[in-house]
């Protein structure tokens, strides 16, 4: 699956990267990323996740063909 991160998350991860197929839902993705970079754990707790341009909950099932976008808290305006 492909992961895209935005804004401050780019200071913790590549803007876009691939992950293995063993991750099955958003909650496990969040845990996996926190393990990859422990310093991102706090910001990851505040993030929203989107698949196919729709926000999804933590129990949303993800598959190998999905692109998951991870959004830190908005700061527009």
């Amino acid at each position, binding site marked *: 699956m492909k992961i895209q991160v*935005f*804004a*401050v998350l780019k*200071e913790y991860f590549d803007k876009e990267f691939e992950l293995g197929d063993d991750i099955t839902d958003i909650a496990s993705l969040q845990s996996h990323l926190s393990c990859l970079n422990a310093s991102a754990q706090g910001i990851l707790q505040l993030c*929203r996740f*989107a698949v196919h*341009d729709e926000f999804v909950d933590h129990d949303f099932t993800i598959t190998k063909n999905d692109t998951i*976008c991870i*959004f*830190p*808290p*908005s*700061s*527009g*305006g």
Partner: protein
Amino acid sequence: MIRSAYSHQAAVAELSEISAGPLDVVGLLAAAHHPKAGAVVLFSGEVRNHNEGMAVDYLEYEAHESMATKMIKAIIADANQKWPLNIAVAQHRTGKVTVGETAVIVITASAHRGEAYAANQYIIDRIKHEAPIWKCEYFSDGTKKWGSNCHC
């Protein structure tokens, strides 16, 4: 020749919610007239030269363009449900925006000013907090910081 204000309305209707180039504040205001509206409210969110005691040189805005577009459209649709508006449009910048430039514009028009003011504030508040758009502040001392909206 004096051009009718209403001939500009197509420009407002076709406005893209996210723009990589400068926002045409004056042009949008010129287009934002409606025969049934007695009040037009324009909010221009601009880049100021300081934040939290630091001198700011410029901001860079990043957006998830398709989702931000969809969300701004939905926020405007919600505002149209809540108030009787004749015009409700919003546009947000991406990329580098320098001090004094407009980063976001919201225009609302209604029969009376109360609805236009209330809807305008509703739209900008929701855009700031909900749309997937982020600012990075570039300070005069050479440092930078991804922003948060905790204080506004």
